[in-house]
C-alpha cells in the first residue's frame, strides 16, 4: 500500500525557514487580536447605545462577522475592495479580515461579560461622582476583561488558525505560506505540512500557557 518513502530528513532541513514563518503567524494573530479587542469594546458600547446610528452599524458588523466565513471576510478585504481601487497586500488583507472577525465575536463575548457584572457596580461608581465613561473605563472594563479572559484566549487560538487562510490570497511569509512555497519546490507535501501541523499545535499550546501566566499575573483577586 505505501510505495512512498517518507523523507523527513529533507523536510527537517527547512525547519528554520518555517520557524520564521511561525513568528509571522504569531505576529499577525497578536496584532489582529489587539485590533479586534479595541474595536470589540467600541462595538459593545455601540450595540447597547440608545442611538440607532450607532446601534445599526455595530449590529451589522457583528452579524456579518459571525454569519459569513472568515475566508469570505479575507476575500472581501483582498479582492472586494479592489472594486474601489483599494488594493491591500496579502498581509494587510489577512490582518484586516481576521481583525474584523475577532471584533465581531469578541463584541458578543464582552457584552455577555458586561451583563454578568452586577448593576450595583455602576451605581457604586456613579455615586462616587464618576461620570458614565469613567465608570465604564475604571469599574466595568477591568471586570469585563477578567470575565471574558478565557473566551478571549480561545479567540486568540482561532486567530492563529485563521492566519493559515492567508495562503489563499497569496500570503507567502507566514507558516502556511512558507510551507506551501517549499511544497511547490520540493513536492514533499505530507512531510512539510505534517511539520507545519506540529508547529501550529505547539504555537496554540504556547499561547494557552502564556495566557494562563498572564491571567495569574493580572488577576490577583
Amino acid at each position, binding site marked *: 500500500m505505501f510505495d512512498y518513502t517518507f523523507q523527513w530528513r529533507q523536510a527537517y532541513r527547512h525547519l528554520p525557514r518555517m520557524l520564521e514563518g511561525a513568528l509571522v503567524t504569531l505576529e499577525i494573530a497578536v496584532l489582529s487580536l489587539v485590533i479586534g479587542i479595541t474595536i470589540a469594546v467600541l462595538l459593545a458600547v455601540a450595540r447597547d447605545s440608545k442611538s440607532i446610528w450607532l446601534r445599526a452599524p455595530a449590529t451589522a458588523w457583528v452579524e456579518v462577522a459571525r454569519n459569513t466565513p472568515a475566508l469570505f471576510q479575507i476575500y472581501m478585504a483582498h479582492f472586494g475592495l479592489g472594486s474601489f481601487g483599494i488594493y491591500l497586500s496579502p498581509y494587510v488583507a489577512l490582518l484586516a479580515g481576521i481583525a474584523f472577525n475577532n471584533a465581531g465575536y469578541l463584541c458578543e463575548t464582552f457584552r455577555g461579560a458586561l451583563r454578568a457584572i*452586577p448593576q*450595583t*457596580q455602576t*451605581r*457604586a461608581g*456613579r*455615586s*462616587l*461622582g*464618576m*461620570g458614565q465613561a*469613567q465608570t465604564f473605563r*475604571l*469599574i466595568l472594563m*477591568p*471586570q469585563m476583561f*477578567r470575565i471574558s479572559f478565557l473566551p478571549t484566549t480561545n479567540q486568540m487560538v482561532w486567530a492563529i488558525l485563521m492566519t493559515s487562510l492567508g495562503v489563499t490570497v497569496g500570503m507567502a511569509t507566514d507558516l502556511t505560506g512558507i510551507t506551501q512555497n517549499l511544497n511547490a519546490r520540493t513536492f514533499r507535501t505530507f512531510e512539510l505540512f505534517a511539520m507545519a501541523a506540529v508547529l501550529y499545535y505547539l504555537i496554540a499550546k504556547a499561547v494557552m500557557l502564556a495566557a494562563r501566566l498572564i491571567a495569574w499575573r493580572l*488577576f*490577583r*483577586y
Partner: protein
Amino acid sequence: MIEIEKVYKSFGKLEVLKGVDLTVARGEVVSIIGGSGSGKSTLLTCINGLEPIQSGHIRIDGTDVHARSTDLNKLRRKVGIVFQQFNAFPHLSVLDNVTLAPRKVLGMSRAEAEEIAVRQLSHVGLADKLKVYPSRLSGGQQQRMAIARALAMSPQYMLFDEVTSALDPLLVGEVLDTLKMLAEEGMTMICVTHEMTFARDVSQRVAFFHQGILAEIGPPEQIFGAPQHLETQKFLSNVR
C-alpha cells in the same frame, strides 16, 4: 441642608413615593424605618440623583438635584452613599478601592489620596487590610471599606441604605459601631435601617414610611414610646 419637597416617584405604573416631604439639617441624624417596599430605599437613590423623580423637588444646600442644569457628578461628591450590597470593586485592593474616586474624580495625586485613604481605613478599623483584595474580606469588613470609600470623598452628607441587611448577624455590630462613631463626630446622616435599637440610640429623629408616604416623624422617644399613627404601632409591634 437636604430639603425634600412633595416628591413623587414611580417605576412604570408602580408608584413608589407619593408625595414625600422631609428636611434634614446639618449635623442631624435621621433614621428611616418601615416595611419592605415602602419606598424608603428609593428615596435615598433619588436624593443623590441615581434615580429620576416624576415631580417635586430635592434640594441639597439649595441646589436642585433633578434640575437639568445640575452637574450630578459634582453634586455626588458632597453626598456619600453606602448600599445594602457592599459593592466593593473586586478588581482593586482595599486601598485602591478607596483612592480611586479621590484620584480620578477629585484629581488628587496618588500620595495625597493614599494619605486620606489610610486615615479613613484606619478610622473604620481596616488599617491592616490595605493590600488585600475585597474577596478576602468578611461582609462586615467589606461594608466598612465601602463606608471609608465614601468618606474619602469628604462628603458633607452620608446616606446609608440598609447597610447591615446583607450581613451575618454576628457582623452587624461592627458596622453599626462605625455608623455610631460617624454620628458622634457630627456627620449629617440619613439611615434607612431595620435596626430599631440603632435608630433609637443614634438618631435625633425617626421617620416611619408606609406605602410611599412618610406616615410619621419625630424624636425616637415619640416614635418608639408613643407612636401616633396606627400603621406605626402595627409595624413596631411586628418587629419587636
